[in-house]
Structures are given as C-alpha cells and as structure tokens.
C-alpha cells in the first residue's frame, strides 16, 4: 500500500512539474523610453568561393527569368567582407517572458525560381505569406525538426498563408519541383531578431535593459554568441566575424 502512495506522490510531483510549463508565466516586455537597441555588423574573413551557376534548363519559365544564369546564395559577401543573410537574435536573457506575435505577416516570395529573400525570420505563430511571383508552379516544402512539415503546391498568383508554432533556427525550405531552390525560415518565440541585408548590418530594437546572449546564425557558417549588457538609454554595439 505504502509503495502505491509513494508512487502516486511521485507521479503527482512529476505531473505538477510538467503542468508547471502549461501555466502562463507571461511577463510582457513593453517598448518604453528605457528600451534600447543592439546593433552592429556581421562580417566574413577568408576566401569566398564564387557562387555556382544554377542550371535551370528543366523549366523554361525559370530560364526566362535569368538572362544570365542564376547563382547559388550559400555565402553572400559584400564590400569590406560584410555578410548577407545572417540571422542575429537574442538567445539568452529573456527567460520567463512571453510575446504575442505581431499581426502583420512576413512575406516570402518565389521570384525567378529562387527565394526572395534567401533567409527570413519571423515569430512563432506569426503569419507567413508565401507569394509565387513566377509564371511557373512551385511547391513550398519546409523540413522542420520541431514544427509541422507541410508541403503545398502553389501555382502563379494563388495566395498561401502558413505559420510555424515553435521556435526553430532555422528551418530549411525547398521546392522539390525545382531542386536548386533553397532557403531558410528562422522562427523565434520573441521579437528580438534581425536578418542582415546587403550591408551586413543588424539592429535588435526595443530591448529592455539587462544582460543578454546575442547569437548569429548562418546557413553555411554556423553560429557564434556574445554576451552583452544593455543599460537603459545606452544603445549597444556588437559585431560578429566569421573566419575561415
């Protein structure tokens, strides 16, 4: 009998632990005058392999979109070694906070049989608006490890709205019809992330004062992290360099 009670107590304890995660612990972080931004530049040092030309000859519609052949976007480095398509985000220091996703969708376009942009980032449960700007049919097929794996055909001009429920950095996205099409979707449970553009710069806006871990992720180059202390009213600067 006693063993049964102990077993029940243990089960109850474990159950409560699991249940604890279900109880809301929402501590909203509001943008106020004390909020500051963390900004900087992501760079790449080393020899960059030239982009590979893509053979799109299987689909004449894709060929037409590229008078000169399209090229891969695995590592895109601009002037002064600035790195495009790197995702910079807060990876530590926000524990205990919960964030509702913004109402406006993030747009991922299929254009010239490539993904524009190559890397996008959005919040969990934020709408992802997939657009087919080509004159050919695509299928958009994410390969998540921690989210639903959907796979939708999208003819030209047909709208498609999807979302991802859980944080995942980052989900590879492909088109099986056009196997050269590759992109990434990074999903966050908070709004403090940015994808570097042509100038390699990023800005994480409206962070409350505190100690954070900031991480940069790149599809081919991996991840790096730095600690940063953000004081009220004092924007912080942070740079990352991938060396190879």
């Amino acid at each position, binding site marked *: 009998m006693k063993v049964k009670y102990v077993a029940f107590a243990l*089960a*109850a304890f474990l*159950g*409560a632990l*699991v*249940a*604890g995660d*279900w*109880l809301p612990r929402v501590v909203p972080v509001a943008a106020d005058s004390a909020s500051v931004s963390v900004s900087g530049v992501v760079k790449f040092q080393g020899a960059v392999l030239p982009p590979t030309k893509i053979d799109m000859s*299987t*689909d004449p519609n894709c060929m037409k979109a590229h008078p000169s052949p399209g090229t891969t976007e695995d590592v895109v480095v601009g002037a002064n070694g600035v790195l495009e398509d790197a995702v910079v985000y807060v990876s530590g220091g926000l524990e205990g906070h919960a964030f509702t996703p913004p109402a406006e969708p993030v747009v991922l376009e299929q254009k010239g049989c490539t993904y524009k942009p190559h890397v996008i980032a959005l919040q969990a449960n934020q709408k992802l608006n997939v657009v087919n700007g080509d004159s*050919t*049919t*695509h*299928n*958009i*097929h994410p*390969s998540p490890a921690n989210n*639903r*794996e*959907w*796979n*939708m*055909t*999208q*003819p030209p001009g*047909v*709208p*498609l709205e999807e979302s991802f429920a859980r944080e995942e950095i980052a989900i590879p996205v492909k088109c*099986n*019809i*056009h*196997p050269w099409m590759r992109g990434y979707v990074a999903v966050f449970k908070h709004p403090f992330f940015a994808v570097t553009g042509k100038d390699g710069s990023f800005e994480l806006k409206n962070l409350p004062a505190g100690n954070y871990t900031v991480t940069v992720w790149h599809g081919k180059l991996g991840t790096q992290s730095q600690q940063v202390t953000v004081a009220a009213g004092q924007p912080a600067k942070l740079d990352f360099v991938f060396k190879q």
Partner: protein
Amino acid sequence: MRVITMRVITKRVIAETGAVAALMLFASLMGVAQQSHIGNLVGNAKSGKALYQRYCIFCHGANGDGNGDSAPYIDPKPRDFTKATYKCRSTPSGSLPLDSDLYDTITRGVHASGMPSWRPLLRQERADLVAYVKSFSSRFQEEPAVAAVSLPPQTPTSPESVKRGGELFRSMNCWLCHGNDGRGNGPSASSLTDSKGYALKPFDLSSGTTLKCGDSDQGILRDLITGLDGTPMPSFSSALKPDQMWDLVHYLATLREAAKHHTAVAAVEPKSE
C-alpha cells in the same frame, strides 16, 4: 496582515487546485494517447506493444524510429513513428493522421514499399497496433486532432475532362518529377529525397500498379488534397479547384489504362521467332 495571509492562502489553494487539475488533464491525455478509436473499436497500446514486438519490430525498430534490423535492406525506408509524419492520411498537409488512417494503412499495407497488408490480424489487433504506434510520438498528446478533409463529389469523366487534366499535369509541373508520360522519370526525379534525406523515386503513374495509399478514384483525389507527408509529393488543396482535381484524376486514369492496354497486347502478341 490578515488580508495578506488570506491572499497567500487563496493563492496557494488556487495553485494547488491548478496543479491537481493539470495533473488530471495530463493523466487523461496520457490515457487517450494509449488508446485508439476506429469506429466502435478501442485499441489498447499495451496489447499493441506485444503485437508490435512480434510483427513490426524487425523493420520499424524497438524504438519505433524505423531503424529495425531489416531497415538497411528496405527501400523506401520503414516509417519513423517518432516523427508522426505519415504519407497516407485523410487530414491536411502537415497534420497528424486520424486513427482510422493508421488502421487503414496497417490493413491495406503501403503498395510499392516493404509494408505488407496486415489484414490477417484481427480487427482488434490492428486497432491495438494503432494505439501503440501513436505512443512513439508526443505529438498525439500535444496537438489537437484535425478533421478529415472533405472530398468533393466526383465529376463524370469525359475526353474534355481528360484533356484539361493533361494540361494541369503540365501546368502544375507534375511532369517535372513524374515525367511527361507519368513514368517517374522527369528532369527533377533524380534529386528527390524523403524528409530524412533518403533518395526517393517519384511514382511511376504509367505502371498500372497500385498507388501507395490505395487505388480508388476517391483515394487518388484524397492524395492530391492531402499530399504525401514526408515525401516531395505536395498538397494541391489551395492550388486546384475541386473539378480541376477530378480532371487530374481522370487524366491519371488514362495513363494507367494505357499501361494495362500495353500489357494486354503484349500478352496476346505471337512471338516473332
């Protein structure tokens, strides 16, 4: 002081009640996950486990991850139940299957794969297996059940419908994987993999052999609506209108009929020697 104490006590009571309620919910969810419901049948995972270890373990593995002893010799690879990603479903792309979908797959088998039909097992045994297979993934506890897609009523086939279906076969880029004649030899065919990275051939639609998830017109239409999750075959649910889907089904039937015709002719032709 007194008010504060009361508040603390009230808070504690609420927290404890909440924890107990959550525990009961958790326990009931666990209970549900250990069962399957197919019509009047209620499958039990405990009974299913014994059957699984007797019939399924060699391919699908003790952990349900598709890495059984026979797995290296099987193409396509046995299903990894820990992912809960299933080809043959009646639910939208990316959704969990219904219990009846898993039951149907066990009963029917997956054609053109190593998965045989388990119809010789009792209906109750198959239901028990469904319950046990579900227990390999927590998704069945975490995600709400999704309703089956509705199948639009069948339109009659006609030369016009077949012609429209053939045009859709081109414009929807089916041919880039399945090939111009549906032989599975399109220009993108060699690049295809399943979601675990294993090479996968597009189905040879001209072969006349039974399709993976069954052969009825409704079954093929359902495949077009749901897609075959975990493979490159996408869902056309937002891409095509219902009558267009039927046009495509009617066209696919002609590819299959052509194959049957060729076989029949070959069988009666006298040998030339």
